[in-house]
């Protein structure tokens, strides 16, 4: 069954200490003309995944501003989610053999949800492709519909995109995480960055004792430089490349490498990649390969905070929010110039970009040799996140969008 999710209250004033009272006052001022007006967020999952994680925090903050906001989750059977997963991969450019039956399943579930969900808010925000065909429920001229696309559509499977385009083009606007991810569309397209929550367990301040405890648990030496990449064990995150970069750095610096990611036990491909990583590590006692539980925000937080340098050497990336997580913690970051990473890492200002194993190693060596520059990059990175990639900024962007849409009518 489709459901309306209840969310836990998050006092907006809790953010004032981090951001300043003026920023909160500003949110209230922008929200004033929208008080009591109805908003619906619709996605396809209540838990797991970045979208649910963001809505879990965004919706209660919008409620704090007296917006009449609801979060609806569409329902679907296994067959629907198999189809949408294959669509998701195809939209990322993976091979896909279009079957008429897939499109029929997609449409049937959207139709069923159209009947079940009360899609009558003044502003309806549909997240990702799964519920995109709900636009058929729109009554002419009655409300504003926008589509938030969290995936990279730069090289989509033609057949799948052409099918979705017939729905997307009927929205009042579409939002993408990077200009690079967008398509040529007949509707306005807006830039909407993903966001992190500075008060969540993954990003909040931690006691030094807790960080020390985590390092002890994973046998990491706090007295030597720690290089860290937090990522699932996926070839696109290039963990083997990270080890190769570390080996180059190791010739010059007595450092350690931490590769930490979600457990690979329920992911067959992840398990294979993990084996490749362990083989490449070859028993080096200074390489810690850590399989974290599926939800381990405090451990991730502690490992990032303990790091000397955070690495994100992806070969391909969505937005790569782990970069913002590290920057928020004032960590110098060396990352690949792929996906949304260059938006977060302004080269030589908020971090260093690299394009190869050798380049990654060189940038790490440079930062280890110049800790004052590393510290400055971390400081600037923190400010960059504060200005652009926090949940409060995302809320502000939504308020601005709703005000713009309201003005246009």
């Amino acid at each position, binding site marked *: 069954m489709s459901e309306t999710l209840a969310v836990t209250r998050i006092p907006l004033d809790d953010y004032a200490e981090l951001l*300043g009272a003026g920023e909160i006052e500003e949110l209230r001022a922008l929200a004033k003309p929208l008080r009591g007006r109805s908003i619906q967020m619709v996605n396809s999952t209540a838990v797991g995944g970045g979208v649910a994680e963001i809505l879990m925090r965004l919706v209660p903050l919008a409620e704090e501003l007296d917006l009449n906001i609801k979060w609806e989750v569409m329902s679907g059977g296994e067959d629907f989610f198999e189809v949408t997963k294959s669509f998701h991969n195809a939209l990322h450019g993976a091979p896909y053999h279009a079957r008429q039956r897939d499109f029929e399943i997609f449409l049937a579930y959207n139709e069923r949800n159209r009947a079940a969900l009360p899609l009558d808010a003044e502003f309806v925000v549909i997240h990702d492709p799964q519920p995109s065909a709900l636009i058929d429920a729109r009554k002419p001229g009655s409300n504003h519909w926008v589509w938030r696309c969290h995936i990279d559509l730069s090289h989509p499977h033609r057949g799948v995109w052409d099918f979705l385009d017939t729905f997307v083009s009927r929205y009042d606007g579409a939002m993408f995480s990077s200009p690079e991810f967008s398509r040529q569309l007949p509707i306005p397209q*807006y830039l909407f960055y993903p966001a992190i929550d500075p008060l969540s367990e993954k990003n909040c301040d931690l006691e030094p004792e807790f960080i020390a405890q985590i390092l002890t648990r994973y046998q990491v030496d706090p007295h030597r430089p720690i290089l860290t990449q937090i990522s699932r064990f996926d070839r696109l995150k290039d963990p083997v490349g990270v080890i190769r970069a570390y080996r180059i750095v190791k010739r010059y610096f007595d450092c350690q490498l931490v590769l930490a990611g979600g457990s690979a036990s329920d992911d067959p491909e992840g398990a294979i990649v993990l084996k490749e990583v362990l083989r490449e590590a070859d028993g080096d006692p200074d390489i810690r390969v850590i399989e974290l539980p599926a939800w381990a925000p405090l451990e991730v937080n502690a490992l990032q905070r303990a790091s000397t340098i955070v690495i994100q050497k992806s070969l391909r990336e969505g937005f790569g929010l782990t970069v913002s997580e590290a920057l928020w913690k004032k960590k110098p970051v060396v990352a690949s110039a792929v996906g949304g990473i260059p938006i977060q890492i302004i080269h030589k200002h908020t971090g260093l970009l690299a394009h190869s194993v050798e380049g990654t190693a060189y940038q790490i060596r440079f930062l280890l040799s110049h800790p004052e520059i590393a510290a400055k990059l971390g400081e600037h990175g923190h400010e960059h996140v504060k*200005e652009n990639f926090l949940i409060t900024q995302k809320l502000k962007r939504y308020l601005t969008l709703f005000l713009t849409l309201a003005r246009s009518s």
Partner: protein
Amino acid sequence: MFRKGGSVRMNTAETPFEFVTVSYLTRIGNQSADTLAELLTGLENCSDASIFHHTYQTLGSHHFLTEGFSNDFAQWVLADTNRNDLAEQLAALDIRDYVSIAALRSDLCRVLGDFCAGFPHFARQSALERFYFCESVEVTAPLGRSARTLDEFRDGLAHLSHAGFYFHFISSRLRLQLQTNDFSHWLSDGLGLQTLADSVNHIDIYTNTLDSSRAKLLRLIDRERRKT
């Protein structure tokens, strides 16, 4: 403000200063550039809102960078085409010198056009990453706070968000069509504090962050208040 017997007495402005904030939505345009020549074509044809976004607005959203970050065009030329000399020329264009987007666009095109004409082989080289032209869609909101005296003005200023400060101090130059900002304009016209207004207008927005600009402004106001 007027002087009597060597002391300074503060005026109350007839027209209050109304504190406002601003928020920008970034609209993704349909133009992008892979080479310097394409960047020039884009600059010639993009909307005024796009020029504003990549110069004025980017200065606000990257205000914490005070070492060499000036506008998106210069940053792209530096990071993605490796043309340091051209990047420096583009970065040197100071938005305080302009009261219209047309004039700023004209100078951006002139600098880039001269380079492309002088080095046609560089102009055709592919960049590491494409440049995407975007536009700013502006929404303003009154903060419900106003000032008639210097004390009230200082209080409002101290509580202003970054965006609000940016709106009054940086983007106001285009709105006023004067080479000044909202604060200086009101300090001069509303309170008659011309010297203070001039000092405020001389705060360098490229080598200061919004926070350090505000701190300087507050110090200047405090110095003025001590005269009373």
